[in-house]
């Protein structure tokens, strides 16, 4: 009766054994897969390359790596996506000995990579091979230099630019060939561009609450972010974000919103991009790298203009800082891996590869010779306004300010600044008070970092 159906008493142990076998089989498969991934002594050297590129840039990178692997019999790149820059960075911090041979790190991870002693400096390979660095854009290299030593090779590089909707400019009676270049001009143009259509408003301007933009405005206004030459003459000990330039930036930011010429769309740049694509805002600030995306969104609707990052009201010859990521060769890897990784880095620097990368992603061409490549010529024909980003790169003078700050706690600093901007925009603090508070917080974390990492 009760026990007659289903699996009998005798079958039950067999069932357990079957499950166990299944488990072992799965485990066995795992081992096999693991073993094949390790390079054999005789075969090609495998360079494990961790990256944080998603979407379109990931597609371009994968295609480039396939091209490399197809044309090199001695080296094979194993490309591994490791989540966002932060995810990848934290994974390496958790266990450096399990790290890759080649690692893409975001701009602001530079200081930590050096202080943690994880890097095999690029300069050592360059000097040994007498590798010619002259075709590489100096402004891009300077960001990743410490003293005269280049630690990592720039890879995906971008700068902030002003994007504007040329059609809305025409409709508002503004000259679509003349973009605003100062805070005051942005304000005036934004006023002319702001229109109420029915019950919805098209705003003249909006920028995401993104700490990177604040850093860029500071540099454009010729102000240091941290002391000791932005932490480049000696380790920084103090944040200078509450300087007059910083206060001017936030005062202007808030004024635009208070006057109703700009709208606050929060922290995500994706949201301002969507609003720009949907013609809800006429001007925005964003990375030069997103032009292809914006163009897709604008296709058939309006024409996009690009202009250099606007400056504050006092005239100063300066410019924005390089952002993005660079490639690091890790120190704790065998010599053969490092050499192979260096060859991969050199390959990515070739004009043909740089052109493919720019065309596929919108990142700046870091090799000057890339502009002579057919692929790049077609690209600039398709997006003539991209030239403004290149011009900005070339017009930026080289100094401590435009080289960008080098502090070990940049991730926290950025979050602190974003909080400060939010407080000001939401009327919870004045620009000066919010920035004084932020400067104090950042200074404290810099001090703590210097202490724990033994930085003098």
């Amino acid at each position, binding site marked *: 009766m009760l026990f007659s159906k289903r699996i009998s008493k005798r079958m039950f142990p067999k069932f357990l054994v079957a499950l166990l076998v299944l488990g072992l089989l799965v485990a066995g498969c795992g081992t096999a897969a693991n073993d094949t991934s390790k390079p054999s002594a005789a075969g090609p050297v495998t360079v494990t390359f961790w990256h944080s590129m998603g*979407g379109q840039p990931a597609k371009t990178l994968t295609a480039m790596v396939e091209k490399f692997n197809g044309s090199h019999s001695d080296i094979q790149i194993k490309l591994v996506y490791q989540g966002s820059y932060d995810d990848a960075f934290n994974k390496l911090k958790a266990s450096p000995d399990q790290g890759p041979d080649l690692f893409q790190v975001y701009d602001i991870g530079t200081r930590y990579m050096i202080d943690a002693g994880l890097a095999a400096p690029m300069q050592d390979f360059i000097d040994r091979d007498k590798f010619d660095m002259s075709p590489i854009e100096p402004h891009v290299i300077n960001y990743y230099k410490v003293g005269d030593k280049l630690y990592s090779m720039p890879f995906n590089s971008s700068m902030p630019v002003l994007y504007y909707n040329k059609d809305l400019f025409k409709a508002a009676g503004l000259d679509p060939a003349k973009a605003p270049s100062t805070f005051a001009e942005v304000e005036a143009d934004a006023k002319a561009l702001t229109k109420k259509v029915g019950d919805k408003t098209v705003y003249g301007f909006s920028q995401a609450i993104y700490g990177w933009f604040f850093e860029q405005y500071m540099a454009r206004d010729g102000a240091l972010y941290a002391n000791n030459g932005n932490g480049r003459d000696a380790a920084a000990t103090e944040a200078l974000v509450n300087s007059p330039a910083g206060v001017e930036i936030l005062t202007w930011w808030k004024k635009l919103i208070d006057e109703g010429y700009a709208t606050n769309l929060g922290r995500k740049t*994706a949201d301002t991009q*969507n609003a720009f694509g949907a013609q809800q805002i006429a001007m925005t600030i964003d990375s030069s790298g997103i032009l292809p995306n914006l163009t897709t*969104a604008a296709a058939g609707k309006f024409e996009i203009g690009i202009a250099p990052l606007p400056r504050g009201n006092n005239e100063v010859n300066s410019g924005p800082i390089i952002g993005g990521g660079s490639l690091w060769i890790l120190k704790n890897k065998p010599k053969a891996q490092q050499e192979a990784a260096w060859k991969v880095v050199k390959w990515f620097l070739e004009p043909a590869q740089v052109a493919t990368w720019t065309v596929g992603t919108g990142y700046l061409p870091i090799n000057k010779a890339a502009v002579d490549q057919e692929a790049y010529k077609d690209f600039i024909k398709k997006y003539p306004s991209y030239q403004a980003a290149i011009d900005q790169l070339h017009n930026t003078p080289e100094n401590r300010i435009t080289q960008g700050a080098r502090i070990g706690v940049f991730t926290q600093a950025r979050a602190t600044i974003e909080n400060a901007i939010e407080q000001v925009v939401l009327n919870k603090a004045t620009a000066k008070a919010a920035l004084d508070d932020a400067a104090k917080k950042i200074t404290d974390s810099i001090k703590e970092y210097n202490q724990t990492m033994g930085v003098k």
Partner: protein
Amino acid sequence: MKTGLMKKRFTRFVQYLLLTIGALGVVFPILYAIGLSLMSAGEASSYPPHMIPHHLKFTAFPAAMETAPLGRFMLNSFVVSLIVTVAQLITASLAAYAFAFLEFPLKKILFLLFLSTMMIPGESTIIPNYLTMRSLGWIDTFRGLTVPFMATAFGTFLLRQYFLTLPKELFDAARIDGCGRFRFLWSIVLPMARPALGTLGVYAFITTWNQYLWPLLMTNSTSMRTVQIGIGMLQFQDATTWNVVMAGVVIILLPSLLTIVLGQKQLVKGLTTGAVKG
């Protein structure tokens, strides 16, 4: 009589109306995701946002598949989720059986100890677990992805509580008939606990399917990666094309939906069978 019927109908109408509104609220994100996945990039970013695509475009699906090897990721996620689910059902039912039917010293304290592990946030155990897996050499293997999740305090608790609701008479009757412990568990308890097993199974499967940080830490090769990392690959911090991301989400949603549909059938079946009858 008639007014009574009217009143009843009206109450029912209100009930259905509220339920429909609630259901729409719950299902809205999925419908919106499907809608976005069928738009072009331009339409996906239009304002006011379109709920339903004005022009059907299927380009986002091949684009998502091209950016991330979602097929392989789904297979991996499926294998991992299935192993974890089966293992949790086995370990949890065995442990719950002990806590529900057996008498042994320190039973209560052991059970409390068991429960207290539920209070430890998963994030705080990630790094120690990772170091253990590394020293075992289980990085980048299915073992590393599954073994740490094979035992579950929550599942044990859930099944124990359910087992306690089963009449004690069953146990006594079975013992008198000469039924062993394993057989009692297998032939009587488990069939009657189907609703609880179904719930635990669905829960275990979906939790494992949705894991992001652990698989990201544990795996180093694309061939071992799971679906949530695939969704990460579709996004990019500088610019996100939502129609492609949503296409990826819709693709990986299908197995979870299937699990719920199949699990629900089990749930209903379990509810209608079994009782104290000879």
